[in-house]
């Protein structure tokens, strides 16, 4: 789908999404249309070892929709890109799996999430994780750098999913793996509703 054929204005959607996730970063305990935090991580089936003992700031803004590691655990030494890394919970789960010989790059477009993720990295002493500002459709990562790309509840918020997947393919090495969680609808959304930005963001 070309950008000109998107059902919503891409800049408007990004602005709405950025506003929504700024709120999740700054007020994780407020009512959102989705679950957040430690409760959500447990609800989605994350291992207790990753969830129970992490400091609250590391997990409180988690807003994923599934466990991107459920179908495949990461290998020590792998290089990971986390698309839409938020406050970093999945990036830290990745970092614990790949170990000191691996590396994780989290990418997010919301400044408040990036700030929180960097504070969280210091909080848990994660030296093998860094966070960069960027969009899913324009990842600040070199061609073929990643062994694995992960993402959680982010692609559905991208106005141009084809561009996002094409960009993810670019940063993966040949043979590299994309493993992600996202939402999908079983009942078609009417074309008119697709143009309602509120529906995209909740």
């Amino acid at each position: 789908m070309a950008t000109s054929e998107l059902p919503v204005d891409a800049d408007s959607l990004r602005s709405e999404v950025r506003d929504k996730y700024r709120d999740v970063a700054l007020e994780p305990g407020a009512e959102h249309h989705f679950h957040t935090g430690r409760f959500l991580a447990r609800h989605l089936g994350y291992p207790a070892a990753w969830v129970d003992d992490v400091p609250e700031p590391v997990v409180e803004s988690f807003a994923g929709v599934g466990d991107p590691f459920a179908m495949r655990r990461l290998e020590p030494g792998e290089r990971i890109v986390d698309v839409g890394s938020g406050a970093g919970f999945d990036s830290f789960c990745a970092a614990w799996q790949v170990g000191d010989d691996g590396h994780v790059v989290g990418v997010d477009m919301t400044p408040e999430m990036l700030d929180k993720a960097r504070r969280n990295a210091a909080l848990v002493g994660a030296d093998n994780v860094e966070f960069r500002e960027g969009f899913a459709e324009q990842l600040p990562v070199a061609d073929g750098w990643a062994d694995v790309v992960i993402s959680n509840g982010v692609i559905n918020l991208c106005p141009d999913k084809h561009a996002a997947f094409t960009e993810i393919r670019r940063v993966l090495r040949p043979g590299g793996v994309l493993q992600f969680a996202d939402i999908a609808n079983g009942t078609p959304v009417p074309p008119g509703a697709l143009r309602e930005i509120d529906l995209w963001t909740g």
Partner: protein
Amino acid sequence: MLEEVGFVDVSYGNRIDTFAGAPGEEKARAYDVHGYTFMARKPD
């Protein structure tokens, strides 16, 4: 779409009732929205 952009070995995992009990549950139920896990590989 994953195959359109050149991924292979596309698979998906179990359906997850992501919004169960959340404020957005009613809207999610209206469109049968659930979470899923996916995996795909870039060809060698």
